[in-house]
């Protein structure tokens, strides 16, 4: 039975539905005090989680270690050395989800590349369709690459104040565009590295941004992907490569994936996650986008 057909006042109905209770069965397991405060118990959340979609990266091995793909309602940080494929992964995710939202702070988003990946995606989809239907007639693929591009909302950010303003504006934007499923920021660190003298201010601003993004992810069921750069850190007597923005920022995201080179291969490593095991997998960047690596060596390593 639907909540919408319950004999209660319209405003109460609206409140229940906007809190996510659309059927009577979802209401029956919640106690009255929970309803009043919007708490969820772990049992309900488990069932919600099972029905949540994940966004594929187009690389099966990468999807495997991610538990199916990038998770919605979470903020995932992806970092790596320049040239490892962060932006490529960002564009791939933007194409794989129907309605993504992309922020570009570095100017590295290339429309032509997005079109290239979108075309490859459409071709793959039609091939998959044919495989499913098992017939030899050409199937009509409804999505055209240009449609995919149309659904990518692109914002170019030129300073850290613009970045803050844009993230504050996102709340309003999301309520107007309810079908946005992913927000990609490439990269979160760019405007906070140069000419930022006041470190204390930087910590406060960044942690405030992180919380706002968390709230957006939760409220609108979005996947938020933050691409980060690397820096060197002097620990234990040697210089090590680590993600930029320091220790305090490292606590801010739900998940963290580090991209690195291993010989000639590109690898991704799950560095932080509340539910995924530590593992690494290899991937490659092709003209069609992010794909499985073609080497014969065993690729996925569980730690």
């Amino acid at each position: 039975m639907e909540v919408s057909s319950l004999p209660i006042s319209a405003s109460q109905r609206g409140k229940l539905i906007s809190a996510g209770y659309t059927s009577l069965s979802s209401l029956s397991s919640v106690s009255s005090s929970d309803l009043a405060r919007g708490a969820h118990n772990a049992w309900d959340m488990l069932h919600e989680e099972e029905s949540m979609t994940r966004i594929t990266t187009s690389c099966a091995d990468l999807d495997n270690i991610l538990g199916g793909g990038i998770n919605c309602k979470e903020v995932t940080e992806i970092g790596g050395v320049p040239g490892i494929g962060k932006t490529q992964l960002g564009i791939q995710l933007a194409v794989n989800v129907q309605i993504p939202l992309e922020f570009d702070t570095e100017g590295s988003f290339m429309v032509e590349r997005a079109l290239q990946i979108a075309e490859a995606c459409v071709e793959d989809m039609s091939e998959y369709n044919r495989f499913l239907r098992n017939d030899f007639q050409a199937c009509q693929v409804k999505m055209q690459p240009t449609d995919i591009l149309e659904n990518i909302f692109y914002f170019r950010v030129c300073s850290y104040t613009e970045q803050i303003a844009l993230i504050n504006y996102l709340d309003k934007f999301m309520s107007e565009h309810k079908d946005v499923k992913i927000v990609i920021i490439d990269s979160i660190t760019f405007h906070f590295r140069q000419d930022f003298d006041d470190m204390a201010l930087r910590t406060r601003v960044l942690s405030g941004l992180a919380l706002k993004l968390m709230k957006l992810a939760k409220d609108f069921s979005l996947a938020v992907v933050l691409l980060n750069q690397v820096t060197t850190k002097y620990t234990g007597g040697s210089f090590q490569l680590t993600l930029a923005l320091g220790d305090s920022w490292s606590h801010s995201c739900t998940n963290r994936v580090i991209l690195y080179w291993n010989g000639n291969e590109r690898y991704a490593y799950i560095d932080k996650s509340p539910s995924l095991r530590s593992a690494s997998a290899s991937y490659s960047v092709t003209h069609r986008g992010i794909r499985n690596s073609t080497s014969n060596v065993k690729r996925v390593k569980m730690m």
Partner: protein
Amino acid sequence: MLTTGEFEDGDDDVGQSCALFTLETLASTPEGLAAFAEQQPTSERLKEGITQVLNIIDNLHQPWLNGLELLEDSLQNKHVLSTGFEGVDLLLQGGLREGQLTELVGPSSSGKTQFCLQTAANVAVKNMGYVAYLDTGNSFSPQRIAHFVGQISESAFNQTKQKIIQKAMSSILCHSVFDIFSMFDVLRQLEFDLRSQMDRGEYRVPLLIVDSISSLISPVLGGSGSQGIDP
């Protein structure tokens, strides 16, 4: 200063006489007050009024307890919650103690969230009551909780195990808070609920977890001093 509305009979005389005394006087010399009251014409009602006022003051603060009473309270009321980690329980001499605030500190990915999830699962399975979990980073993983509960519950049969998992997970209440004011709201509501159900004793929340408090405080107070050098 107390208003005359505090008194049951609302007698002006009592009210007026009492208005002459400041709280300081009342607190410091109740005997002197009693002696003074004896001399007044309306002494009976005055004495009543004074007793009422002193009761109100007493209720505003916790009663004084002596060492023996504290020990009894600690043994009977302040239970120790096992975390489910043997080593940590050993360090904490039994586990997390009710009435105490325990801070868990560590670098990123050191296992703080996993510790919180496991402890929540343990307390929930051992039927010690509800667990309130405040999550600031969307890190609450029902999947992990289910895994921990499954590990802890000793029953071998699949059906009863499912029931145990359901019962335990239904007593872990997760709130997502993204700023310090929402956290205060949640805590205030929790306090209200606990006070109003104190007599019935069915609604017990022996464990409150906040993961993590620093992400709520950083935007407000963070970054000063020690954060200066490390970018």
